[in-house]
């Protein structure tokens, strides 16, 4: 079986720390001391990642924007208690995940927007027909994602879009790695099934 199927690359190349780690630690230290300008730099570093995760969880731009702001405000309040033994982005995603799940529980009925109608996919296909196919696949994926149970949706988004490891997912979702593994497998099986039907 070719390696491209098996994640061999992921296993052999350890996840290197993102650039600017020292810089980020300094921002965190200053933000913990109460410096709002330093905290704004942290917000700018993570705002788009957090926003798109929340957007795909709750499905509407307005609510996602509001929730993302709430997450950063909560994180500011809790920042003095943050310890460097957890990665800052993992900690943020945990707050974001809780906020999104709370929002979903509150409203019960979820209306999702079709994200790919609003955003153009990466135009990597060579000709218009291939581009259309690519767009249709992405739309099918977004639609299938919206149908997943929220616990599976957040797990697969954090893994596939944000690239979190199982250990990080375990910290964000507050479950053990065995649960992460089974949740991802169920999410993938459900997505693959829906995806296949949509493309049939």
């Amino acid at each position, binding site marked *: 079986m070719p390696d491209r199927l098996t994640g061999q690359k992921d*296993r052999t190349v350890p996840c290197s720390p993102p650039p600017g780690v020292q810089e980020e630690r300094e921002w965190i230290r200053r933000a913990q001391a109460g410096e*709002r300008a330093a905290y704004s730099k942290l917000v700018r570093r993570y705002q*788009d990642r957090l926003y*798109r995760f929340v957007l795909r969880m709750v499905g509407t731009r307005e609510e996602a924007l509001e929730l993302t702001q709430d997450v950063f*405000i909560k994180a500011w309040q809790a920042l003095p208690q943050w310890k460097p033994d957890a990665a800052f982005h993992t900690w943020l995603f945990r707050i974001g995940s809780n906020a999104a799940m709370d929002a979903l529980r509150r409203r019960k009925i979820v209306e999702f927007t079709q994200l790919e109608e609003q955003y153009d996919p990466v135009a990597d296909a060579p000709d218009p027909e291939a581009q259309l196919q690519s767009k249709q696949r992405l739309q099918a994926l977004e639609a299938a994602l919206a149908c997943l149970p929220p616990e599976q949706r957040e797990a697969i988004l954090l*893994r596939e879009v944000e690239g979190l490891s199982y250990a990080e997912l375990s910290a964000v979702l507050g479950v053990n790695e065995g649960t992460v593994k089974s949740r991802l497998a169920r999410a*993938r099986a459900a997505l693959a099934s829906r995806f296949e039907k949509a493309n049939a």
Partner: protein
Amino acid sequence: MISQSQDCPRAEALSALIDGELAPREHDQLTAHAAVCPLCGATLQQFSDLRGTFQRVAHPDAGVDIAALVEPQLQPRQPAESGRAWRRWPWQLAPGGVAAAGVLATGVYLGMLLMGGTAAVATRPAAMAVFDAVPPGGLCVGALCAPGTR
């Protein structure tokens, strides 16, 4: 090598394989198995295609500077000192304790004076003598006139 059995496809293991989260030995065994098991091979291919599609999904940004929206809403952080306002050392409480003990002792002393000291005897009014066993002006009979009964 893992052989094909009833519980194929092993979705959990294949999913972890895609994520590169299996131990090297498990990874190699499952990869070899998927190469010969049509069910696992097909599932692995599906998961791999899914990953390929995820890699092309759009990354929408917020379209606004969230930091600029958030910053005015941040409450100034309380100085660390105020958080420990109630945490005092015992010696810091000593002056107040001494004062409280002094006030209490003074109160007890004054109370004792009122209840049982010389002041109690001195304050007995003469009019109360009408309630004595032998009222003022009455004849004194026997033991009633013994010293100390009047």
